[in-house]
């Protein structure tokens, strides 16, 4: 497994470049990944999405679908794409320290 330098730490990542160990994740690491994804500063709306994703993952073992995200997190589809322009499901999961979502929707 590959390792990358994030927020001054050497961390293991999976084949998609997402964190391999969820225990390695903290807010600084999230900010460092966000920067790699072109998001200069995570704001409270980003955090709302990230926290929601982490909670769903904790419960279900997979990241939520975009539909679930927009229906339950309080962030609608338009805003979601504005927050994570290069694809919310994949990018938000990566910043949240989760594996790439398995769902199709």
């Amino acid at each position: 497994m590959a390792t990358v330098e994030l927020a001054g730490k050497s961390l293991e990542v999976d084949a998609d470049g997402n964190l391999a160990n969820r225990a390695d994740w903290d807010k600084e690491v999230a900010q460092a990944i966000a920067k790699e994804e072109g998001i200069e500063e995570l704001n409270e709306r980003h955090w709302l999405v990230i926290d929601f994703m982490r909670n769903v993952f904790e419960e279900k073992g997979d990241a939520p679908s975009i539909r679930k995200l927009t229906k339950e997190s309080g962030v609608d589809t338009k805003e979601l794409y504005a927050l994570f322009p290069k694809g919310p499901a994949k990018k938000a999961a990566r910043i949240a320290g989760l594996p790439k979502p398995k769902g199709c929707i």
Partner: protein
Amino acid sequence: MAEPIEKLSIVVSKGSLDGIYPGLIMANGARMEGIEVMMFFTFFGLDAILEKRMDNISVATVGNAAMRLPGGMKMPTWLGAIPGMSTFATYMMKREMEALDIPPVREFIEMISDAGGEIYACKAAMDMFHMTEKDLCPQVEEIIPVGTFYEKSAGAQIIFT
């Protein structure tokens, strides 16, 4: 490594539930990956963006050789022609889709449009079915001829469904 896909044009030409959904799922999935998407609805595929029809899309039980009964037995073709069979199959399939978090057509079109996907109606098909702009759902950007479709698809991969 091969070049990643950056732009897609998806043509939807069929109006049955199984004709419409694959295109919608692929379009939404592309946006989720950050791929630019436009959708072009033509012929019976127009039903997916017509105000009066989009909430009433059904499964074709006639002429569908892969159709199975609950339990997995192949459905005899004559059975598909019985009144109510398509309604029943549609009900079953919509229930399965809802469980997978796949939205109804109207919500799906809204989702794709809100995600930045562009929705277009085919001019020839609109004329053929005597439809005008006011028959379309509000997410449709424009009615365009095929030439414009190709212009807008510059640099895109085209998928026909």
